[in-house]
């Protein structure tokens, strides 16, 4: 039953989305790899599209993957399943707002989870780098030569350009996306 599988996978993704946005990338990637619904490159493209279109990465991915797996009904199933945990959690919290806010135990648990989300975001960078700046057919090994040859020269240049300028000038993400698209069109 594809609908049930979609429900299960995206409900879990929705339920375990901590840290928002980029932190969810690793989580979705793990599930997509397991079910083979979309390739790493396709997923990287969805993330790129998510920067240019309205809506969170997770919603965009759910809609795209659901549509690919089982048409419009699949897209609806996947998106609703993804949204459902957030809905339930927030309605519950809105109801018990005061008690939740002052709970010391909750505060400590969140203290433990916060650094994990940082680790999740750095993992997302590694995963994305594999499809965006590393050569697919690079040799393995840890010699300097192997490491250097595993990078695709031109896209690494784009990466470094954006990285250094973003660290310095904090441009708007949309501007970064448009500029990298233009650079890609010219030099890649």
């Amino acid at each position: 039953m594809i609908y049930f599988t979609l429900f299960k996978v995206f409900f879990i993704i929705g339920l375990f989305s901590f840290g928002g946005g980029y932190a969810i990338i690793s989580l979705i990637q793990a599930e997509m790899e397991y079910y083979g619904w979309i390739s790493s490159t396709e997923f990287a493209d969805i993330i790129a599209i998510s920067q240019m279109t309205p809506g969170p990465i997770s919603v965009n991915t759910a809609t795209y993957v659901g549509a690919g797996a089982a048409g419009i009904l699949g897209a609806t199933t996947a998106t609703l399943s993804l949204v459902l945990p957030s809905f339930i959690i927030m309605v519950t919290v809105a109801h018990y707002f005061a008690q939740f806010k002052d709970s010391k135990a909750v505060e400590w648990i969140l203290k433990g989870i916060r650094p994990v989300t940082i680790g999740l975001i750095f993992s997302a960078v590694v995963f994305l780098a594999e499809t965006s700046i590393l050569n697919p057919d690079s040799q393995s090994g840890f010699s300097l030569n192997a490491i250097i040859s595993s990078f695709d020269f031109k896209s690494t240049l784009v990466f470094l350009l954006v990285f250094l300028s973003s660290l310095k000038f904090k441009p708007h993400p949309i501007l970064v996306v448009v500029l990298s698209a233009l650079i890609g069109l010219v030099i890649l």
Partner: protein
Amino acid sequence: MIKEKIYESFEIFITFFKIGAFTLGGGYAMLPLIEKEAVENKKWLNREEILDMFAIMQSLPGIIAVKSSAFIGYKKAGIRGAFFAAVGVTLPSFLIILLIAQLLLSLRDNIYVQKIFAGVRAGVTALILVTAIRLAKSALKGYISILIAIASFILIVFLNVHPVFTILIGGVLGFLGYLKHK
């Protein structure tokens, strides 16, 4: 009475549809727009409530856009309000991706489209790295939290551990800290 409820539901739906349609990228990018629409224009809640909501939301699982909408919708009209707010905020990205999915599939083999996406992929990777560094600077306080962050990175990237497990481990460690300090 029923007429009022229908009007109110529609108003909530439209407000959040608008917020959903005009936020690029989702997440925290949505918050300024929510403040403008729900606090300033509609006065559904005040600034203090929004601040409390942000604080709680950051720490709860789920999608930030959906959570904030459902919360405000609930304040305004209970579960019905939460429902129309959540559907309203999700619908624009749902519709756009359905359209783009078709377009993307038909354009995937175009050489220029491929160049553009190759560029954007490299740029977005850099963008996320910058975000990660910035967040790490502000959120990692003390050597224990740095250790937890590095450990979860190694577990996921090199040992292929499912991210859900690292989140659970972080939660358990936090709870142990609570028991110790109680």
